[in-house]
C-alpha cells in the first residue's frame, strides 16, 4: 500500500468537500445554529406551558364540609398559604350552570359537554353525600383511635380517596367526588394533576385540623423525614444524564456526517465519471478506499464533535437560566459535563466514526447516482440506530452480553467510564475493544471489496421484472446457492423459528411433545427451507448441500476431534453459565425437560436429540448456507455468518453463545475439508457426549473403571478429569491440523466452490 497515494487522495477529497457549500452547511453550520434555535424554541414553549392556567369548574361546592371549605367566597383556595402553591395556575369557577335534568346523570352530561367543547378543562362534581362520607371516614378513624390503633388511622386517612388501600382498613371507593376530564387533551390532563395536588393538600390540612381537635399532634401524619447522604460527586451526577444522551446524539451525527460525504465520494464520482479515471490511475483500490475513508471519517468526527459541543454549550446556557429561575435540581442534573467525560466521548467517537464511515462508503459504493445513494440512508439508519439507542434503555448496563453487541458495547463502556465505574469498564474493555476492532476491520474490508467488485463499480441500470427474475432463478441455477440465496435461507429459518416460538406454547408436557417439537423444528423449520431452496434453486442437491466424498483419515480425525473437543465445549458452557446464570424459569423448564428425556431409552434420546439435529443443522448451515456464502472468495464471510445463524437458532442465550463459538470451529472445518461430512461427525459426537454424560448418571449407571482416567463422579454427575481437559486440547489441535491439511482432491473442490 502506497501511503503517498492515500495522502494525495485524502487531501484532494478534503479540499473537494470543503469547497462544497452543502456539505459545509450540514457538517459545520447546521450544528452551530440548530441547538441554539431548538433551545430558544423549547424555552418559549416551556414558558407558554408554565403560564397556562387550567380552568376547573366546581359544581356543588355547597356540598363541601362548611367547617373546612375548599374555596372561599372569592373562589380562591381556602387553604393555608403553604398548601396553595399547587393551585397557583388554577382558575376555579363555581357558578351554577343550566343542568340537563335534575339528577346526577344530567349533571354529568352537561359537564361532559362543557369539557368536550373546551369551555372548561375539568369539572369537579361534589355530590351531596360528600360531607357524610367525610364524616364516616372520621368516625371510622375515631373507632380505631379508641381501639389504640392510631398509626393505622393515620395511614388510612393519609391515603384518602381510596387510591391505595390497607387490607384491614375500610375502603372508601366513592367519597362523593367526581372529576370529568378529557384525557385526550393536554390541558385537561394538566387540570387533573393540579387538582389532585390541591385535593391532597386540602386533605392533609383537614386531617391536621381533625387530629388537633382529637388532641393528637398533627406531626403524627407528617411524612418520615429521611436524611440523605449522596456520596456521588457532583461531576458524576451531572455526567449521569449526559452519559445517556450525548453518545446517542454524537453517534447519530457521526453516521449522518459520514453518509453524505460518502455518497458524494462514491455515487457522485460515479455520476461524474471521475471514479473510472481514478480507478485507471496508479492508485490501487485499497488506497482509494483508505483515502476516501479518512475523508469521510474526518467529516464524521467533525460533524459529531461540533454537534456535541454545540448541544452541550446550548444546554449549559439553558441550565444557567434554569438555575437563575430557581430550578437547582435541573441545573444539577444538566450542569456542565466534566472535561474527562468529554475526553471519553471523543475516544468513543474515533472507532465509531471509522466503523460508520466504512459502512457508509460500502453502502454508497452500491449507488449509481447521488439520488440513488440517498435511498440507502434509511436502511443504514434502521440497522445502526437500534445499536446506538440500545444503551438508552434504563435497565441495561455493561456486562459480557452487552459488551459483545457492536456499537452498544462501546457506548456502555464509555458510560461506565464517564460515571467513574472504572473497574467494571476495565473488566469488559478487552471484549469491547475486540468487537469494535473486528467491526471496523470487517466494514473496511467490505468497503474495499465493494471497490474491487466490477459489478458494484460498473453496475448498469436493472431491467428487472418479476417474470424475468423467476425465469433467471430457474435458468441460471448454479451447482450451489448464491450468497443472496444462502442469506435468505438463514433469514427464513430465523423468522420461522421466531413465529414458531409463539405458536408452540410454553410447556412441553411429555416425551411425545418433545418428539413432535424436535422433529418440527429440525426438519420442518431448519432442514425443509434449505432442502426446498436446494431443489428449486440449484442444479445439484449433493453439491448444494456440500455432501462430498471424504477421506477416511479426515473422517477419523473428525470423530476424534468431536471427542477431544467436548471437554473444552463443556468448560465453555460452564463459563458462559457462570457469567450469565440461567434464570429460575429456564432452569425449571430445563429440569423438567431433562426428567422427560432421562425416562426414555438412550438410543431414542440420542437419535432424536443428538443425531437428527446434527445432521439437519450441518446440512443447512455448513452445507447449503456455507456453500452459497463461500463463493467469490468469501470464506471468512461464510464462517462468520453461518456461525451467527447457527447461534441464533438456539433460543436460550447461553446456548446461543456456545453454539456461535462452536459454529466458528465447525465453519473452519467446513471450509478446510470442503464438505459437510466431517462437520456432521464432530457435531454428532459432541451432542452424543453432552446427552450421554447426563443421561447415564441420571439412570444410575456406574462409571466404568476403565474411564476413570478421563471422567470422575461428583454429586451424581460425570465430569471430566482436569488432566483430560489439558490432554484433550492437545489431541484436538493435532486433529484440527490433520483436518486442515487438504488433499489435492479437496483442494480442487474448495477452489471450484470459491469461484
Amino acid at each position: 500500500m502506497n501511503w503517498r497515494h492515500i495522502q494525495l487522495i485524502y487531501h484532494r477529497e478534503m479540499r473537494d468537500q470543503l469547497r462544497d457549500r452543502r456539505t459545509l452547511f450540514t457538517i459545520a453550520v447546521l450544528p452551530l445554529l440548530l441547538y441554539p434555535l431548538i433551545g430558544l424554541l423549547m424555552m418559549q414553549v416551556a414558558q407558554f406551558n408554565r403560564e397556562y392556567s387550567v380552568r376547573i369548574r366546581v359544581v356543588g361546592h355547597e356540598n363541601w364540609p362548611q367547617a373546612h371549605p375548599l374555596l372561599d367566597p372569592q373562589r380562591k383556595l381556602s387553604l393555608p398559604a403553604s398548601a396553595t402553591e399547587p393551585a397557583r395556575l388554577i382558575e376555579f369557577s363555581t357558578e351554577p350552570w343550566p343542568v340537563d335534568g335534575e339528577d346526577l346523570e344530567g349533571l354529568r352530561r352537561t359537564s361532559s359537554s362543557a369539557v368536550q367543547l373546551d369551555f372548561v378543562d375539568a369539572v369537579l362534581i361534589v355530590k351531596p353525600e360528600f360531607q357524610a362520607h367525610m364524616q364516616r371516614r372520621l368516625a371510622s378513624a375515631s373507632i380505631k383511635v379508641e381501639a389504640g390503633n392510631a398509626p393505622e388511622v393515620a395511614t388510612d386517612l393519609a391515603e384518602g380517596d381510596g387510591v391505595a388501600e390497607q387490607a384491614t382498613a375500610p375502603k372508601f371507593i366513592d367519597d362523593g367526588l367526581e372529576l370529568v376530564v378529557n384525557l385526550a387533551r393536554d390541558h385537561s390532563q394538566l387540570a387533573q394533576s393540579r387538582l389532585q395536588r390541591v385535593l391532597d393538600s386540602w386533605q392533609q390540612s383537614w386531617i391536621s385540623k381533625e387530629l388537633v381537635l382529637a388532641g393528637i399532634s398533627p406531626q403524627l401524619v407528617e411524612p418520615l423525614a429521611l436524611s440523605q447522604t449522596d456520596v456521588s460527586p457532583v461531576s458524576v451526577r451531572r455526567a449521569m444524564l449526559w452519559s445517556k444522551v450525548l453518545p446517542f446524539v454524537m453517534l447519530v451525527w457521526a453516521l449522518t456526517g459520514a453518509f453524505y460525504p460518502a455518497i458524494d465520494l462514491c455515487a457522485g464520482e460515479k455520476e461524474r465519471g471521475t471514479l473510472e479515471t481514478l480507478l485507471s490511475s496508479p492508485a490501487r483500490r485499497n488506497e482509494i478506499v483508505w483515502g476516501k475513508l479518512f475523508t469521510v471519517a474526518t467529516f464524521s468526527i467533525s460533524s459529531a464533535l461540533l454537534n456535541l459541543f454545540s448541544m452541550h454549550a446550548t444546554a449549559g446556557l439553558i441550565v444557567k437560566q434554569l438555575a437563575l429561575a430557581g430550578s437547582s435540581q435541573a441545573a444539577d442534573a444538566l450542569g456542565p459535563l466534566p472535561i474527562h467525560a468529554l475526553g471519553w466521548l471523543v475516544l468513543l467517537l474515533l472507532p465509531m466514526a471509522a466503523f460508520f464511515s466504512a459502512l457508509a462508503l460500502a453502502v454508497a459504493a452500491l449507488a449509481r447516482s447521488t439520488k440513488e445513494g440517498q435511498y440507502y440512508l434509511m436502511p443504514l439508519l434502521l440497522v445502526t440506530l437500534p445499536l446506538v439507542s440500545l444503551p438508552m434503555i434504563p435497565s441495561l448496563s455493561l456486562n459480557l452480553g452487552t459488551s459483545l453487541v457492536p456499537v452498544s458495547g462501546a457506548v456502555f463502556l464509555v458510560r461506565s467510564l464517564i460515571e467513574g465505574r472504572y473497574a467494571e469498564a476495565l473488566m469488559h474493555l478487552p471484549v469491547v475493544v475486540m468487537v469494535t476492532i473486528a467491526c471496523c476491520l470487517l466494514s473496511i474490508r467490505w468497503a474495499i471489496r465493494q471497490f474491487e467488485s466490477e459489478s458494484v463499480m460498473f453496475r448498469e441500470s436493472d431491467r428487472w421484472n418479476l417474470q424475468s427474475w423467476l425465469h433467471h432463478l430457474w435458468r441460471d441455477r448454479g451447482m450451489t446457492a448464491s450468497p443472496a440465496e444462502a442469506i435468505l435461507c438463514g433469514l427464513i429459518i430465523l423468522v420461522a423459528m421466531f413465529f414458531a416460538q409463539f405458536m408452540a406454547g410454553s410447556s412441553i408436557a411429555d416425551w411425545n411433545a418433545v418428539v413432535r417439537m424436535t422433529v418440527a423444528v429440525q426438519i420442518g423449520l431448519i432442514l425443509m427451507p434449505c432442502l426446498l431452496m436446494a431443489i428449486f434453486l440449484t442444479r445439484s442437491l449433493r453439491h448444494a448441500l456440500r455432501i462430498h466424498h471424504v477421506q477416511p483419515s479426515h473422517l477419523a480425525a473428525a470423530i476424534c476431534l468431536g471427542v477431544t473437543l467436548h471437554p473444552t465445549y463443556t468448560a465453555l458452557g460452564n463459563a458462559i453459565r457462570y457469567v450469565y446464570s440461567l434464570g429460575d424459569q429456564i432452569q425449571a423448564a430445563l429440569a423438567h425437560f431433562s426428567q422427560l428425556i432421562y425416562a426414555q431409552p438412550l438410543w431414542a434420546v440420542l437419535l432424536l436429540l443428538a443425531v437428527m439435529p446434527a445432521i439437519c443443522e450441518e446440512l443447512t448451515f455448513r452445507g447449503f448456507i456455507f456453500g452459497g456464502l463461500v463463493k467469490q472468495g468469501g470464506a471468512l464471510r461464510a464462517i462468520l455468518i453461518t456461525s451467527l445463524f447457527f447461534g441464533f437458532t438456539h433460543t436460550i442465550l447461553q446456548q446461543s453463545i456456545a453454539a456461535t463459538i462452536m459454529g466458528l470451529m465447525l465453519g473452519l472445518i467446513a471450509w478446510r475439508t470442503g464438505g459437510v461430512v466431517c462437520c456432521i461427525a464432530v457435531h454428532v459426537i459432541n451432542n452424543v457426549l453432552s446427552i450421554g454424560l447426563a443421561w447415564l448418571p441420571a439412570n444410575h449407571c456406574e462409571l466404568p473403571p476403565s474411564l476413570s482416567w478421563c471422567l470422575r463422579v461428583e454429586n451424581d454427575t460425570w465430569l471430566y478429569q482436569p488432566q483430560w481437559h489439558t490432554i484433550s486440547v492437545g489431541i484436538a489441535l493435532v486433529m484440527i491440523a490433520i483436518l486442515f491439511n487438504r488433499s489435492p482432491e479437496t483442494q480442487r473442490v474448495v477452489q471450484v466452490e470459491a469461484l
Partner: protein
Amino acid sequence: MVEVEQLTKSYPDLMTGKFVALDHVSFAVQPGQIFGLLGPNGAGKTTALRILSTVLQPTSGLARVNGFDVTTHPYEVRHSIGFVSSNTAIYDRMTAWEMVEYFGRLYGIASERLTDRMEKIFADLQMNEIRDVAGARMSTGMRQKVSIARAIVHDPPVLIFDEASLGLDVMVARALVDIISGLRASGKCIIFSTHIMREVERLCDRVAILYRGRILASGSLADLTERYEETDFEELFFKLLRTSDRAHQAAIAGSDAVMAMAAPTLEAGSNR
C-alpha cells in the same frame, strides 16, 4: 505496444442469462500508430478499452499493454496508459491546474518536473487561460482539454480515447483531432474509439469494426476498401453491419428450426 488476443468479456444478464460484450476480439497496435475501434453504441468498444485500462477484468483471453499483462500487472499497465473518456471526467470543484497536478502526483512525478511538464502541456493545449477555472464552470471543450492534459501528464506510451469527441462542437472536435495527430507524431501508440467516420478517415492508420462484441473486419482503410470493394468507408461500415445482422438473424432462425426439428424426436424418445 498493445496486443489483444481472443479477448472475451461476458456478464450475467437477467434476460438472457449471459451477455457477451466482447467475443474473442484480437488486434495489435504499434507505437506511432492510431488504431480506430469503430462501432455503434453497445458494440463493446468501451468494454474493450476498460479492460485495457485495467478497470475491468477479462473473462478470458489476453491483453498486453507496453509488454504488461492487464490481469497480472495492472499497476504497471496503469502507469503506461492515459485514458480519456467521452464524459470528460473532470472534478467540478477543482481547477484545471489542480486536477492535472493531482494526477501527476498520483503518477509519482517529482514536483519540479511536474511543474515543467504541466507548463508545457498547458501551453501546447492552449489551456493557460483556464488554468484557475473550476471544472464546474468549464465548457465541454475546455473539460475535454483538461481531460487530455490529465491523461498525458505522465507522458504514457499508450493513449486510449474512448469516444472522446462525443458532444464536442465542430471547432473543439477539430482541435481534438489535431491534438491526437500531434500525439501520434510524438510516437504514442493510440487507440481511438468512435462511431464518426470522418474522424476515422482523418486519423486512423488501422481500424477494426466492432459489432455485437465481435470484430467484423480490421486493417488499414485502404485494405478494407479494397477487400470489400467499397470506396466509401461509411457505406462499407453499414454494409458490414447489415451482413452481420443477416447472419445473426439466420443463426437465430436456424437454431429455432433445429429446435423445431429436434422436438418430435425428443418427444418420441421420451415416449419410448
